[in-house]
């Protein structure tokens, strides 16, 4: 454990450089550049609002805020885990030639998505204000579900990164799994009717739904559901322990398979 921290200190700069590289390369040669991190969620929000708000009749003036908050969190989770899943393979050029602690690759992939997420929060803020959802003190509490989400992404990301080295099809399987996660997250519908029905557990046992629901409470200035928070935290903790263990155990074999 001590060498772990020593190593992290030595390679801290590499971690920053890898995050920086991701952001720099993502928007290279695009005219709007980093603005896309704000424009893309805004445009998606408009589409979803038109489809699910206007056409399917979810009225409510703050429905766009509801959608945007949910989708930002879901995108963060799906992008960072997908990124972590592919991280070993995309960095194989480096892995094959120099020694670098391997957890830096999935970790920097996740951190990079967090930075993009923080940038896109500007949009959430702007849309909220313009639709008169004003920030309250609960907004400060949002760091808690966001931290739980980070731990969850790292845990799931490490498991996927490890398995992804040995089984390439996982990339496609995970895409399908993410679709299931998305539909059980109540991103573009109100979950109340489902939650009170017999199949409510499908949502309740989805840790990402719990995190999204907590985050939304903070945005709309309500008290977050502590039961959901506890469940999501526990899930995240277990995943990060399992992920760290699996990754540490298998990381020396990566090079033989990529």
């Amino acid at each position, binding site marked *: 454990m001590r060498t772990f921290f020593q190593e992290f200190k030595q390679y801290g700069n590499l971690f920053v450089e890898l995050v920086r590289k991701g952001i720099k390369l993502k928007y290279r040669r695009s005219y709007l550049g980093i603005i896309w991190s704000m424009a893309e969620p805004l445009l998606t929000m408009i589409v979803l609002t038109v489809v699910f708000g206007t056409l399917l009749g979810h009225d409510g003036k703050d429905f766009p805020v509801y959608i945007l908050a949910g989708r930002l969190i879901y995108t963060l989770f799906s992008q960072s885990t997908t990124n972590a899943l592919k991280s070993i393979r995309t960095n194989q050029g480096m892995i094959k030639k120099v020694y670098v602690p391997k957890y830096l690759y999935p970790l920097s992939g996740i951190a990079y998505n967090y930075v993009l997420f923080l940038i896109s929060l500007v949009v959430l803020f702007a849309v909220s204000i313009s639709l008169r959802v004003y920030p309250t003190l609960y907004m400060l509490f949002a760091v808690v579900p966001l931290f739980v989400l980070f731990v969850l992404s790292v845990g799931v990301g490490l498991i996927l990164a490890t398995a992804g080295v040995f089984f390439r099809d996982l990339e496609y399987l995970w895409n399908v799994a993410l679709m299931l996660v998305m539909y059980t997250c109540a991103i573009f519908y109100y979950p109340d009717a489902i939650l009170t029905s017999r199949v409510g557990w499908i949502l309740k046992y989805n840790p990402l739904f719990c995190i999204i629901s907590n985050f939304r409470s903070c945005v709309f200035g309500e008290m977050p559901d502590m039961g959901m928070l506890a469940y999501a935290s526990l899930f995240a903790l277990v995943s990060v322990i399992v992920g760290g263990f699996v990754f540490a155990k298998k990381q020396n074999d990566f*090079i033989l398979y990529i």
Partner: protein
Amino acid sequence: MNSIITLTDVGMRFNLSREKVDSVKEYFIKRIKRELSFNEFWALRDISFAVEKGDRVGILGLNGAGKSTLMKVIAGVFKPTTGTVEKQGVIAPMIELGAGFDMQYTGAENIFLYGAVLGHSRKFMEEKYDEIVTFSELSEFIDVPLKNYSSGMRARLGFAIATAVSPDILILDEVLSVGDAKFKKKSEKKIRDMMDMGITVLFVSHNMDQVRRICNKAVILERGRLIKYGDMEETVSVYEGMTR
């Protein structure tokens, strides 16, 4: 004894599965049919030797003798199947061209990236930046993405970075064979300067003249085993006898 690298009974085994299994479906089909056989292959076997600080060791051997695998084990890329590798100080590995480079990144950005790979801070690399650009003679192309570089240019940049950060151990795996004659001369001079400062060099090359000029010791590998380790002149002449 002042050993900077110590290898004890190092062995490296690879599983050369006859067909690569990397999908879930294949894995289960093969598992049911009991076709998951592995061909074991020892790329290195029972390698033990110590390198002292300031030594320049030439690594000799035919293609497939395990030279690059040995360098990767020492650099920490491979974890040896058996035995241990102990090393002190910062290693700058130059294994193949452009280790740790990103092809989308420009030359300038790669300087900072590769510096970080070697464990240096951004500030430290900023101090070394001019030196690296001047030595690599790439100032005109420094803002061009690396994918547009020729292999010689990449090698020059890699060599310039690896030597500018004054590592304790420099691993050169057939890197000097890429540049043109002028750059070869220049980089040999650079290595000799660093030798005066006490750097340790592991040098893989098929060019015996270069080995003679740079090294003071040499190792011969044959099919993954160490068959000779000793004084450079003596070892090189044994090796030349083998290849004749």
